[in-house]
């Protein structure tokens, strides 16, 4: 059970936390137009504050690659030591990230992957496909006797690659147990869009057995819509793992029976790794003296049984 990378005390206990050389880190991320992205930025800033030797520069969140590129260029001009970059679109930021690396700046790629290994020193990824698989597997485990079950999916922003990956994982996992997604809508990761799309979805499908909702923040809206419809015949699996949902799961009275974690601490981990890399330190619990090239975070399923383990690091959406 020690697969959880986000346990805060674990890594920081060693001598790595002792102040070292000053590190100037630039951070750029998409617009905080949904809870998870807001949590990412917050966690990143909070993490940076913990270290007296880290100076964090935060650029305005933007969904325009053009503007994000110029933010990275500005960081290069400012001669920062490292850049933690959560690109709106991985491939679109690859060129400028490569440029930063060539300028001797340590680039840490977060969440959305570049398409060139030369563009980042290390990459921290959530497991979007794995998230879908986890959710699908959980749904299968709950519905294994009923082959004609109706499964619905409320996705996030459909034009993002990560949504596609999640949906693919979900579909593949369901296929393994002979289920399929009957109804699917895409919201926009916001509470409001979640409510709106869920309300429509509930009309489209008069009977449902399970719903997977990609994002717990939009899930608040989804649950509001479900409550409005007075329907109770199904269970809901969440995504991302917000504290609210975990508390609901813990209470046991909610329709939400499980959620799949998509860690919102990726940016914070990015800060730590960037600092270690610039200060030429190793990752505490590994024997290896270099920080690994890629770290993929695990997407565990949280249920009533193990919720206490995850609640402390869950994000308050």
């Amino acid at each position, binding site marked *: 059970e020690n697969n959880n990378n986000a346990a805060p005390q674990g890594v920081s206990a060693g001598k790595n936390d002792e102040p070292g050389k000053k590190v100037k880190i630039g951070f750029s991320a998409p617009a905080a137009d949904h*809870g998870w992205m*807001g949590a990412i930025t917050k966690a990143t800033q909070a993490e940076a504050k913990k270290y007296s030797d880290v100076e964090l520069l935060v650029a305005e969140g933007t969904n325009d690659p053009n503007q994000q590129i110029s933010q990275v260029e500005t960081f290069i001009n400012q001669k920062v030591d490292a850049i933690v970059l959560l690109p709106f679109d991985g491939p679109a930021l690859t060129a400028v990230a490569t440029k930063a690396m060539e300028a001797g700046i340590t680039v840490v790629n977060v969440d959305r992957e570049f398409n060139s290994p030369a563009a980042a020193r290390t990459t921290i990824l959530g497991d979007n496909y794995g998230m879908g698989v986890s959710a699908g597997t959980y749904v299968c485990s709950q519905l294994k006797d009923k082959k004609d079950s109706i499964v619905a999916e409320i996705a996030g922003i*459909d*034009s993002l690659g990560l949504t596609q990956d999640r949906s693919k994982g979900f579909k593949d996992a369901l296929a393994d147990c002979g289920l399929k997604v009957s109804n699917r809508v895409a919201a926009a990761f916001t509470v*409001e*869009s979640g409510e709106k799309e869920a309300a429509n979805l509930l*009309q489209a499908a008069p009977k449902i057995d399970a719903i997977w909702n990609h994002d717990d923040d939009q899930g608040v809206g989804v649950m*509001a819509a479900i409550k409005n419809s007075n329907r109770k015949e199904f269970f809901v699996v969440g995504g991302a793992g917000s504290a609210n949902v975990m508390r609901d799961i813990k209470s046991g009275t909610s329709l939400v029976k499980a959620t799949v974690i998509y860690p919102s601490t990726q940016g914070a981990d990015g800060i730590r790794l960037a600092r270690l890399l610039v200060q030429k330190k190793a990752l505490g619990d590994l024997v290896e003296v270099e920080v690994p090239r890629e770290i993929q975070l695990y997407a565990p399923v949280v249920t009533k049984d193990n919720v206490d383990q995850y609640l402390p690091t869950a994000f308050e*959406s």
Partner: protein
Amino acid sequence: MSEAPSDTTASTQATVAPPTAQRAGGLLSTGAGRNLGLVLALVVLCIVGVATSGDTFATGPNVLTILRAAATIGVVSIGMTFVITGGGIDLSVGAMVALSSVWATTLATQQLATDYHWIFMVSTALLVGGACGLVNGLLIAYGKIVPFIATLAMLAAARGLAEIISDRRTQIVNNRSFVDLFGGSLIGVPTLVWIFVLVAAAGWVVLNRTTFGRRTFAVGGNTEAARLAGIKVQRHTVALYVLAGLCCGIAAVMLMARTTTGSSTHGQLYELDAIAAVVIGGTLLSGGRGTIVGTVFGVLIFTTLNNVFTLNNLSFSAQSVAKGVIIVIAVLLQQRLARRTTSS
């Protein structure tokens, strides 16, 4: 002075068009005619809905779903109708909804609501919306900043402020009686829909039956004429933006009840949705002509479109394309129809 009958006939000729053409034109231009196209577009949409998923589309719950979805953006659009009729535009509506919802769900406000009454939450939302509208109005009327820029600035500022206040968290509404009342139903119809109906009715009365409404047309249609007629144009402009802000406050309350949250991400792209509904309803973007009934239809058309798409399980991208095509067809149809009935 004797009025020779022949003279009167001659002057009738000069000052008004022939009576037959006039009656038809009058009827059509005052509402039924223009709205006929909108009604038709809506009816066609409903027929498509029934044809493709009749079992669910035509049910009571689904109709209520459509209405509930229309309610929030509908209230915002009513406010927008006033602003646009008065010759302005408001890009900050979405941001004002977000800020109002966040401010009305802070710990402090919710504490007040818990201790005393949820009315504190509602009035906070209205106050915040009204205050933002006031700032918009002052900047535009007295600062002489073009509405587009002034409200764009408000958009950025209000959303930023909402993020700061909420610390970018989704704030959950704890007050049960608030959620039960506004999220509930009255005689089988959701409270939200009642609110929309009330706001729309009030909007219609104000726009068409009060001096305030008539002056809105004057300010939007011919500002200089309005000024020369002794209308306090600047004060009126401020009032219009305050009104839009208040509508955003109401919308925030509705959204808080509907989603049980306040959030800085609420109301995204409301500005586009509201303007689209208003314009498709027949209000002139250049001001001076506006219709509440048209706006209501505009909102219903967009919401029904969304519902029909979802019922049919269309992919998101296909929805987009279809939406664009349908809007164009609907408008063309409506225009053709309006032209034919007017010319006949």
